[in-house]
């Protein structure tokens, strides 16, 4: 059953299945400029903070996610699998892409 993922900064929502990770689902949503890197938890470009909701994780590099990060739920989106509706804040390289107009999908407001 797909869950809802809410991006806090923009209020946008997208769906993500149990077997999908947050990054692939976000990229699938059609938004431009998502910094899809290695998709294996090694490169660190897709960092998010999960501010609400349950999830499972798979192994990710401790060079990019420290114990403190993990405790604060700052994780790599490519290694986070939702187990309910979740909310995320985008961090690092992803922040610029998601939180500028260049990264936004057309909405009712921006459609010409």
């Amino acid at each position, binding site marked *: 059953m797909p869950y809802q993922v809410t991006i806090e900064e923009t209020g946008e929502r997208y769906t993500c299945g149990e077997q999908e990770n947050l990054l692939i689902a976000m990229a699938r949503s059609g938004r431009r400029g998502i*910094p899809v890197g*290695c998709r294996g938890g090694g*490169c660190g470009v897709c960092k998010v903070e999960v501010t609400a909701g349950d999830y499972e994780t*798979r*192994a990710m*590099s401790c*060079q990019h996610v420290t114990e403190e990060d993990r405790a604060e739920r700052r994780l790599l989106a490519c290694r986070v699998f939702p187990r309910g509706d979740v909310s995320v804040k985008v961090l690092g390289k992803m922040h610029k892409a998601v939180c500028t107009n260049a990264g936004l999908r057309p909405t009712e407001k921006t459609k010409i």
Partner: protein
Amino acid sequence: MAMTGVLRPGHAQLRVLNLEEGVRHYRDVLGMVETGRDAQGRVYLKCWDERDHNSLILRESDRAGIDFFAFKVLDEATLDKLERDLQEYGLTTERIPAGELMETGERVRFEIPSGHKIELYATKTQVGNGLQVTNPAPWTPAAEKGIAPVRLDHCLLYGPNIAEVKKLFCEVLGFYLVERVLGPDGEGEAAIWLSCSHKVHDIAFVEHPEPGKLHHLSFLLESWEEVLRAGDILAMNKVPIDIGPTRHGITRGCTIYAWDPSGNRFETFMGGYQPYPDYEPTTWTFDGLGEGGGLDYPQRKLHESFLTVVT
């Protein structure tokens, strides 16, 4: 060309976040041959046409990336001489005892100014390529398993001080510069391709602020068709691809770049040309790298993920 001194890339030790996922990738998708596991839990693999016991060692770790990259040298006397030469040049070297890596003789390890650990060794057990040495067939069933590259070809490493790295490889280890990319201001070298043979590269470096980073390990295929077949096999196995299939202007190599399950980039590569040490190096401007087709000749553009994502 005559082959003396440093012969060729010999092995790389990669860190993987999950060992069995890594083994499944390199053994079953790439199609390498698993040749052993040691008491530390490391897994050894080789490409089907390599004669020596191993060329890739996987180590489970909490971070991705490369532990070290090694070159095989002609013999033990050459190893001793190169170790003395490195020390005279001012580097600290470390001898790692025979057997620390399975079926591998003594290694000389040193850290280069880009923060990478490089090793030299002269001896590794020759297990052969599965073909008899008298009147062999041209290939074996292992040559058809997975992508089935014939050998570990080269690596591209990201780190600082590549001008010093070039000096060390050329003045001490006998490499020569094949191609280079100038920096955005036209000054200095942002990237260098170095050869110890007549391959277009045995190792390459890109200037990068963080030391010790891996851009990719490259595995050699014999035809452009095999690279396209590799693309099909990667897609069938849902392996995330970075760029390709395409051709580089730089080295003329035909290629696909993709990521292993821990995010280490690898390349399935063929082509290039046969450089010799007396050739004038090819120079690419920074514009040449993008619009000039240095990185991606058909599309003539830069790919941000290719330039910036490393482990």
